[in-house]
């Protein structure tokens, strides 16, 4: 029918839209992967806080290696394990910018452990995001430092054994003991409620630095890897809830300083 | 005119600072200079030496294997550097530290009781300046006032009250050589 006005209808229909801080490039992440949610949340927070022109991110080597394709902010791609050192260099040179690093478990807690601990220990005024899914996703599903006992990976074909492979490295509580850490929390993105909580934690972390807070804000996201775990997205989230969160319990480990 | 000098002894005897002061004084007289230390673990309580070159022409190699003048403050340095003094060159040694001063006949070997003289000045750390004074007594490479000006640069300000003592020590060393020459 000609002449029917339905603009109001299309406006009403928009219940969610891509943040302007995200580019139009579709994510390459596997269906159901927590990285997609975290990439989106990060850019939503940057948009809502109005700091797109002041935020500089550092991408890891790992599944999120291409995250700078999706984020409409200035970014640097770091060598494997060195994101927090690169972020340190950026923040020290441009102290009025907001700088975050984003790393997986192999990147942050294996090859980059020294940089992780010392960046936190110096109390750099940056946000460190740690996506812990217990596996090397990008290289084909090898054992990660955080892989739990019994987990089958491409380098632990009969499951992780403590006497042979060592224990899962629970690095976040370790980090929280360092005086340079101002805020340490462990969150997840497996449910809508968890996503909202994570977004709130991320917002508070940026606001902390915007208000002149000093020290590292360290956010671990206990996440999934449907492809690496050989599960459907729903199964992988259920696995998190049934088998992983008891090893890596969620919640604030070190609240913001009063 | 060019002087190629090595100064050697134990760490703590003021070997490196003696050389540095001499080089600085040369620079203040608009000469070309270089100061090359031995460095590393041997500096920590062991032997130390430095090569100082003072010249009217740009210095080519800062590293040498023959010297116009060697100032040696212990036996190992005496033994090591004696053969490296050029014929008719000078070997100045702290004679109380050297128990075997057997020496080549084609060089001027002069023993100086610098430690005793320093004690006489009530400051044993002045030993190196007595040796430097003696060195300048054999070869007027730089003037004493230049050395004093160099010390003003080399010494931290809190030690500037020691400048008169250092001047005294330099003159003392220079005087010893002049006496030797008169005899």
């Amino acid at each position, binding site marked *: 029918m000609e002449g029917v006005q339905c603009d109001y209808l299309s406006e009403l229909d928009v219940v969610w839209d891509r943040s302007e801080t995200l580019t139009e490039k579709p994510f390459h992440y596997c269906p159901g992967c927590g990285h997609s949610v975290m990439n989106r949340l990060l850019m939503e927070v940057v948009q809502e806080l109005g700091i797109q*022109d002041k935020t500089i991110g550092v991408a890891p080597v790992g599944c999120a290696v291409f995250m700078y394709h999706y984020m409409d902010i200035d970014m640097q791609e770091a060598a494997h394990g060195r994101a927090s*050192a690169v972020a340190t260099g950026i923040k020290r040179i441009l102290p009025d910018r907001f700088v975050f690093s984003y790393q997986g478990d192999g990147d942050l807690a294996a090859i980059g452990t020294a940089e992780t601990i010392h960046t936190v220990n*110096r109390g750099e005024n940056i946000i460190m995001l740690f996506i812990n899914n217990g596996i090397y996703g990008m290289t084909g599903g090898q054992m990660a430092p955080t892989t739990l006992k019994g987990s089958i990976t491409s380098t632990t074909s009969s499951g992780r054994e403590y006497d042979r492979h060592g224990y899962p490295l629970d690095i976040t509580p370790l980090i929280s003991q360092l005086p340079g850490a101002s805020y340490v929390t462990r969150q997840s993105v497996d449910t809508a409620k968890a996503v909202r909580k994570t977004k709130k934690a991320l917002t508070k972390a940026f606001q902390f630095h915007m208000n002149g807070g000093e020290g590292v804000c360290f956010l671990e996201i206990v996440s999934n890897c449907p492809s690496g775990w050989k599960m459907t997205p729903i199964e992988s989230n259920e696995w998190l809830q049934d088998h992983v969160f008891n090893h890596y319990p969620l919640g604030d480990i070190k609240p913001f300083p009063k | 005119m060019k002087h190629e000098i090595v100064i050697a002894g134990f760490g703590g005897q003021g070997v490196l600072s003696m050389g540095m002061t001499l080089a*600085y004084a040369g620079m203040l007289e608009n000469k070309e200079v270089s100061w090359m230390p031995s460095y590393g673990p041997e500096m920590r309580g062991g032997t130390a030496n430095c090569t100082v070159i003072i010249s009217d022409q740009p210095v080519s190699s800062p590293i040498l*294997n023959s010297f116009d003048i060697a100032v040696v403050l212990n036996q190992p340095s005496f033994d090591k550097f004696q053969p490296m003094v050029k014929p008719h060159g000078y070997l100045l040694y702290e004679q109380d530290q050297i128990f075997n001063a057997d020496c080549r006949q084609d060089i001027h070997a002069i023993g100086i009781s610098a430690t005793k003289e320093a004690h006489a000045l009530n400051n044993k750390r002045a030993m190196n300046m007595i040796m430097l004074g003696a060195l300048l007594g054999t070869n007027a490479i730089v003037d004493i006032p230049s050395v004093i000006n160099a010390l003003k640069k080399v010494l931290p300000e809190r030690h500037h009250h020691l400048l008169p003592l250092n001047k005294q020590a330099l003159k003392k060393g220079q005087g010893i050589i002049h006496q030797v020459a008169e005899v």
Partner: protein
Amino acid sequence: MPEKQLMKGNEALAEAAIRAGLKGYFGYPITPQSELLEYLSRHLIDRGGEFIQAESEVAAINMVYGAAGCGKRVMTSTSSPGYSLMQEAISYIACGELPCLLVNVVRGGPGLGTIQPSQGDYFQAVKGGGHGDYRLIVLAPNSVQEMADFVFKGFDLADQYRNPVLILADGALGQMMEPVTFPDYNPEDNLVDHSDWATQGKPASRGPNVITTLHLEADKMEAVNLKLQEKYRTIMANEVMIESIQTEDADLVLVAYGLTSRIAHKAVELARNDGLKVGLLRPKTLFPFPSQHLAVLADQVTSMMVVEMSAGQMVEDVRLAVNGKVPVYFQGRMGGVIPQPDELLKRIHQVYSSSSTQVNS
């Protein structure tokens, strides 16, 4: 006239870096370059820069990567084993075309080696060092004055070509003292605007600036390589620096860089006293290498002799440049031993008398 100061090479280099507008230094202690780090720890922060003693050379060079990616003048310094640790990130820095200054005050190797001076890192410095096809601009000072001068030159070249610049010194140059004067240099007059590529925060007026070295499609990665190679050719055509000493009438020309060029110079003086027509060609830039100068010289002399504190590394480049026109001899010491003027003189006499016969050595 600027005041002359008597300084150690390491300290002169550090002071020059501050005067060149250094905004960030990231380093880790290692002998024989620690004075550089110590000097900057004392003076840089008060004079407008950031200083971090990092947890390792790996962290330090990655801080340089991040900071250089912001388009400001930044640097690190280290010595041989530490420089080896930095290689991965230097490859990234070269590929990302991030201007910065690197300093390797070389010590004797391989392994933990010795803290005495060496030139055993030549291959690592000029042939890449890390993975992939890349080049650094490599400057080789031979005096305390040049330890300072090459810092200004190095930062200018780094900015001009968006390329890391390496100052390849050695332990003796770092530790020795000579008079130095600092040029009248205002960094503000020499700074290059890098805001078109550097990550400084994205204003609404432009797209994001991204620094990455990952290009999975082979044709894109080849394009990156071709662009780099084009830049290196421009550098080779325009930035060679040499010093020539008495080469005009020379039968035998010594080729040496850094500290050994000073010793070779002394040997030339001694040989001239003995009536031998000997000269010295000193590359001041090791990349770009003075291949053309050497090729021209090869038409004029009867032989050449390369002197290095290594098993013979630069000699390969000299032989490539000379391309068999004349014999190229080699005299080297390793492991921290410095060749002495008289041993060079002895060798010069040998070579000089046999230079009509083709002897390979």
